[in-house]
């Protein structure tokens, strides 16, 4: 928190440009809701915002946190250390105090923790503010301390603490609770006002954000999963099928709810295999369809994905990665599905894989994935992850009138058609949707068997060689047409950090931090994971070290999954990996420390 002291008063008011607030409690305390309100408020106040949350994988009970970073300037990660901790319980205090930067403020619920229990060491290191949150909430709205309401009371406290826009916040609260019993909205406002009007006389400092930089910008605030699902709708996808699994599930829930408005539908299937099969059937029906999953569900889908590669069927497969293998760490963040996304399945089965790096990127990536699937008649895997899926960000409202696509099937009759035409000028397969009359009377078949140009099975090794090459070459053509990645920072230097997926934000922030300390560090982000885009070799040539930063294991060869993939293109020993598997997002400082250490 960069502060500039204001005229002395008690408590003093400091101007800040950004703050990291961590709220810690239990999963049923509704702390995600406070985070959501703060994020939405930031979005409406022309500020940048990024959130980070953890939830236990069980339904009820278990510790949970929500961290929100609000900034008047660019926000690239959810923040390494918190400026303020709001702890609902003794256990939340103990577990998260270390995430607070020295001198940071901790607000604790004095109904759950006694002031005399706080160690002298902690008292000197951090600034403590005890507020009887539970009892004051009960006083304001009735019920018991266990009931909901503490979260909204605390939101009031934070609003006071950071001089947040109360008019906007109360409007958000009213909007959120509209449609329910009017008493619910009234109760929420009472709780909020009680928190806001609480005399923070003991607070050491109050804060005020500098005005945001995004002045006049209309922003939308949503989670990565929401952005991805809306992106698919904008791309023109009207059919999908899935099976519930965390953290993919909210994409399917949203599509189930929304697609009928556009004349489409989303089907919940009996299993993962049925859901990818149904999506492939609908894609064959003429319009790119979507399926998705996480972890084990992706494993189950691989046989069918191989069919889509063989039959060259456009298809979108969303993989919201989580900690694996097997059931693994369902609510932890990992980027360990890169290998299965690129190579999962038997045989030579080239397909396209794209990563998502932010909530906004989820929206646009979904559209690009659909366009690639259609243009190159190929399945496309979107690799997103648990971190992006659940975090909330504000981003510039897309120009929907311009962006929203129509991809309805074209059933105009044709004279003749060979889907797997080996002499096609661009080498790309084209399917005609069933329902299209072909005047020659020769109709195509789509199949998982090796086939001739009409799709009829063949045992000819010559055709197999030609078709294998065809499936490979069309994606090599895609690779050659991909945009060359842009270097973040100077084009030459000591260290180049390579990111993919959600590592982008923390890696770029690491570049800023390292450069501020005088180190020649730059970064490059790889959005199109497989096949890789052109130009990497030239970019790498400008640096002495290339470190691929990713959330997975270093494996037998001592390099992460993306690192290994890059090495197959550019076999250079200067490419090494910075990996970790603790299930949490990157801490910017860790990236810098490890990179500098490795470069010694």
């Amino acid at each position: 928190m960069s502060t500039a002291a204001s005229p002395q008063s008690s408590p003093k008011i400091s101007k800040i440009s950004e703050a990291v607030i961590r709220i810690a409690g239990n999963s049923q305390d509704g702390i995600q809701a406070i985070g959501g309100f703060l994020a939405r408020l930031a979005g409406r106040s022309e500020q940048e915002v990024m959130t980070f949350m953890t939830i236990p994988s069980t339904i009820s009970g278990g510790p949970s946190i929500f961290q929100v970073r609000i900034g008047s300037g660019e926000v690239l990660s959810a923040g390494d250390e918190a400026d303020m901790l709001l702890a609902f319980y003794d256990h939340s205090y103990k577990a998260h105090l270390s995430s607070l930067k020295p001198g940071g403020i901790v607000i604790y619920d004095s109904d759950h923790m006694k002031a005399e229990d706080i160690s002298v060491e902690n008292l000197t290191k951090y600034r403590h503010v005890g507020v009887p949150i539970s009892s004051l909430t009960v006083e304001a709205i009735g019920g018991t301390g266990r009931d909901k309401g503490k979260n909204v009371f605390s939101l009031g406290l934070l609003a006071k603490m950071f001089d947040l826009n109360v008019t906007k916040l109360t409007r958000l609260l009213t909007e959120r609770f509209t449609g329910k019993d009017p008493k619910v909205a009234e109760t929420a406002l009472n709780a909020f006002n009680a928190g806001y009007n609480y005399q923070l006389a003991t607070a050491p400092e109050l804060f005020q954000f500098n005005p945001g930089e995004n002045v006049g910008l209309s922003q939308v605030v949503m989670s990565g999963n929401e952005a991805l699902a809306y992106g698919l709708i904008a791309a023109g996808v009207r059919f999908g099928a899935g099976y519930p699994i965390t953290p993919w599930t909210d994409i399917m829930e949203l599509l189930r709810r929304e697609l009928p408005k556009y004349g489409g539908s989303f089907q919940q299937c009996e299993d993962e295999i049925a859901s990818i099969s149904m999506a492939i059937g609908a894609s064959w029906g003429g319009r790119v369809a979507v399926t998705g999953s996480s972890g084990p569900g992706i494993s189950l889908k691989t046989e069918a994905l191989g069919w889509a590669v063989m039959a060259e069927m456009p298809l979108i497969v969303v993989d919201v990665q989580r900690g694996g293998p097997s059931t693994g760490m369902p609510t932890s963040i990992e980027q360990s599905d890169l290998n299965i996304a690129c190579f999962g399945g038997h045989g030579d089965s080239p397909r396209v894989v794209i990563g998502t790096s932010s909530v906004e990127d989820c929206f646009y990536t979904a559209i690009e994935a659909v366009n690639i699937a259609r243009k190159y008649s190929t399945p496309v895997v979107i690799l997103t992850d648990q971190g992006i899926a659940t975090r909330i960000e504000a981003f510039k409202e897309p120009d929907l009138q311009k962006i929203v696509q129509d991809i309805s099937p074209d059933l105009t009759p044709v004279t003749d058609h060979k889907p797997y035409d080996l002499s096609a000028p661009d080498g790309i397969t084209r399917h005609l949707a069933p329902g299209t009359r072909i005047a020659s009377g020769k109709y195509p078949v789509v199949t998982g068997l090796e086939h001739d140009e009409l799709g009829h099975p063949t045992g000819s090794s010559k055709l197999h060689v030609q078709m294998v090459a065809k499936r490979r070459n069309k994606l090599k053509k895609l690779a050659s047409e991909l945009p060359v990645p842009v270097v973040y920072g100077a084009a030459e230097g000591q260290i180049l950090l390579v990111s993919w997926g959600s590592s982008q934000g923390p890696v770029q922030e690491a570049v800023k931090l390292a450069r501020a300390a005088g180190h020649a560090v730059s970064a490059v982000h790889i959005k199109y994971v497989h096949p890789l885009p052109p130009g990497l070799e030239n970019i790498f040539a400008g640096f002495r070290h290339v470190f691929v930063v990713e959330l997975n294991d270093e494996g037998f060869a001592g390099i992460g999954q993306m690192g290994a993939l890059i090495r197959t293109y550019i076999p250079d020993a200067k490419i090494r990996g910075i990996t970790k598997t603790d299930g949490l997002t990157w801490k910017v400082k860790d990236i810098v420390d490890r990179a500098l250490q490795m470069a010694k």
Partner: protein
Amino acid sequence: MSEVAILNPTTSRGVNTNTTPVAPLLDADRKPLTKKEVSADHPTWCPGCGDFAVLALYFKLIERRKLHHEKITTVAGIGCSSRFPYFVQAHGAHYIHGRALPFASGVSLSRPDLQVCVFGGDGDAFSIGGNHFTHTARKNVRLTYVVMDNSVYGLTKNQTSPTSPIGFKSKTDIWGSKDRPINPIKQAISAGATFVARTTATNPNHVLAMMEAAMDHDGFSFIQCLSECVEFYPGAFDAATPRKGGVFNEIPKEHDVTDEYASYKLADTEWPGLFGVFYKTQRATKNANEQSIIDDLQGKSAGLEPWQILKKNFDRMK
């Protein structure tokens, strides 16, 4: 990233398409397809295989119903009988083992204008695809499913199938199978199928009658068609073939096809069992249920372009 770098291809068929559009034909100007027009590859089946009859009757059905090439979608999984789509001159899909039903459901639900017919064998339907059979039946997805049941794995050359009778000797049960076989009719009724029929490839008129009734049914229509594998299970269905000394017993005329329990009981008739429609009822199809959700929600956003509908959601997230 706040823009789309990879743009939408200009037409739904992509760039450089090698097809030339032609003028549409009026249905009235089109003649029913002949067998020659509707047959494609020569079947890979062994001479004498029961599946030939099923294919010939499918052609006859297409001719009789005046179906045009482009409206017929033939879908199959893996197995001898599942090579069916290659033999039909129409849009066809030969999918992976056991998953033809969910694939076909995707076609049926997204393209209500198409006639979706699925063909497969007993291993595809009741073993690897057992789960899908149950759920497609209970959801009552509008499609016709013909299972050509030969009670043996033929493509992989003689292993026990889920409908092989107790005592059947195969390469995986050299002492004779000990596992109780599935009764496909009971399976279908208990799963919630709304049209359940049984026929045998040796009685062509009956096969055609069942196919026609299935096609007329609005919902999931299932036909178990006994189809002899002359290579690995010769004589399997002689008991149901009069010219081989068997009896072809039809379901009694007085049977109430809407009586689920009576139908279930009838399906337990001693080998070779009965033939005809066991069960038939009308229940809202998955297709109709989805359409009613669509109609409801679209009614609320009548007159809006897709981008305007999406904009309404985005406005709420500001």
